[in-house]
């Protein structure tokens, strides 16, 4: 009996990796999925936090794709290891703080480690030549092959006919003629193939599945690094960049203002790590303070900002409670800032 050939697929939860797996299943390959959690994945978190998103589909798309394909999925926490990819990307960042080429190389390298540990034969991805400006060009796709150490063990079934033959093709484990020759940014070939396979429900995230491709998120990350004076970060730091309005009236502190009930509830879990404010005379958001309030003027200014975002924003006076970390709670009666009094530059 011939040996069952096994491949691991990088599963993002999008359509391309779903199609790539399906195409390889047609060739009799046993496939399992692998999904890396970097901390910046859009999956799950924002849906879980924001109440306004609670009617949206809460499924984890990677798990859902695996279930549709009938394959196992291994979700791997790479939060710590990923820091070096983001902080020191050899190939730089994309339009925002997205280190796409280094990220793809990192993930393929991790997949190589996984196939060695688990005695699988090769790796597949849903990449398409020319699909993305940074990590899916013919030249950069070759960089991933070399720098990940995958060499001929990295197969891209959706565009394999546009690339040099890989080891599984040379060995006859898979038939090159049965793979595809997609290229470019058009999604039409993928949509047509999805129809052919009977896939009617699939995720197509517009800006990718990573917060680092988001301009607003990236701006807040850069601000965090500038204020700290270094690029290190903790998991909680990058989580908090996903929630609330971030307002920096001064280099030595910023306020994170909950935008709705779901965010306020999520931020409550951070009250034991930060000073915080809330409006006691009116309904209003929870506000975390990151940094240091150096004097009474800082506290009053912060309290006026907090009052701006509560139901008392048009009142003459609002009572704000300030709870310093480990200190006595204080009440401050302030006049809320008007919209015009809040400089645009304060909003991150």
């Amino acid at each position, binding site marked *: 009996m011939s040996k069952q050939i096994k491949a691991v697929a990088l599963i993002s939860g999008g359509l391309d990796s779903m199609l790539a797996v399906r195409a390889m299943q047609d060739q009799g390959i046993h496939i399992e999925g692998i999904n890396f959690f970097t901390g910046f994945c859009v999956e799950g978190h924002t849906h879980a936090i924001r109440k306004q998103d609670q009617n949206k589909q*809460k499924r*984890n798309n990677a798990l859902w794709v695996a279930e549709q394909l009938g394959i196992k999925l291994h979700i*791997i926490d790479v939060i710590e290891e990923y820091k070096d990819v983001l902080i020191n990307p050899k190939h730089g960042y994309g339009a925002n703080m997205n280190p796409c080429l280094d990220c793809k190389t990192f993930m393929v390298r991790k997949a190589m480690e996984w196939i060695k540990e688990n005695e699988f034969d090769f790796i597949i991805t849903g990449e398409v030549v020319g699909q993305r400006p940074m990590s899916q060009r013919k030249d950069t796709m070759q960089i991933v092959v070399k720098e990940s150490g995958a060499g001929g063990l990295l197969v891209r079934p959706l565009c394999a006919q546009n690339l040099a033959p890989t080891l599984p093709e040379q060995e006859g484990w898979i038939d090159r003629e049965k793979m595809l020759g997609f290229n470019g940014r058009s999604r039409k070939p993928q949509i047509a193939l999805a129809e052919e396979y009977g896939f009617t429900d699939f995720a197509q995230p517009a800006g990718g599945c990573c917060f680092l491709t988001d301009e607003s998120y990236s701006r807040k990350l850069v601000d965090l690094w500038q204020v700290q004076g270094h690029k290190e970060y903790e998991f909680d730091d990058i*989580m908090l960049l996903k929630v609330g309005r971030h307002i920096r009236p001064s280099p030595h502190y910023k306020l994170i203002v909950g935008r709705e009930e779901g965010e306020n509830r999520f931020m409550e879990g951070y009250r034991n790590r930060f000073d915080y404010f809330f409006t006691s005379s009116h309904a209003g958001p929870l506000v975390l303070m990151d940094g240091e309030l150096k004097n009474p003027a800082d506290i009053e200014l912060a309290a006026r900002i907090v009052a701006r975002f509560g139901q008392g924003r048009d009142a003459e006076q609002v009572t704000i409670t300030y709870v310093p970390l480990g200190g006595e709670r204080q009440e401050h009666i302030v006049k809320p800032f008007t919209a015009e009094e809040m400089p645009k530059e304060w909003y991150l």
Partner: protein
Amino acid sequence: MSETLHTLDVRGQLCPIPVIRTQNHAKKLAAGDILEVLCTDPGVTSDIPAWCRINGHSVISTETRDNVIVVTLKIGNE
């Protein structure tokens, strides 16, 4: 087969971390063992069952006790 009850506390963690920790904990358990996962992210009510279905485990119950979501699952033969 004897069933051993295990508990995993992932309260305060957001998906997919509860799934990852469930997955990693399950690797240490034997087929037939019962694992009770304590969570606060409502996303677990879809993600842990999905993870169980594709990995051969089964969800016995999902209930909320004092604002804590408790997903109880039985470890399958992987």
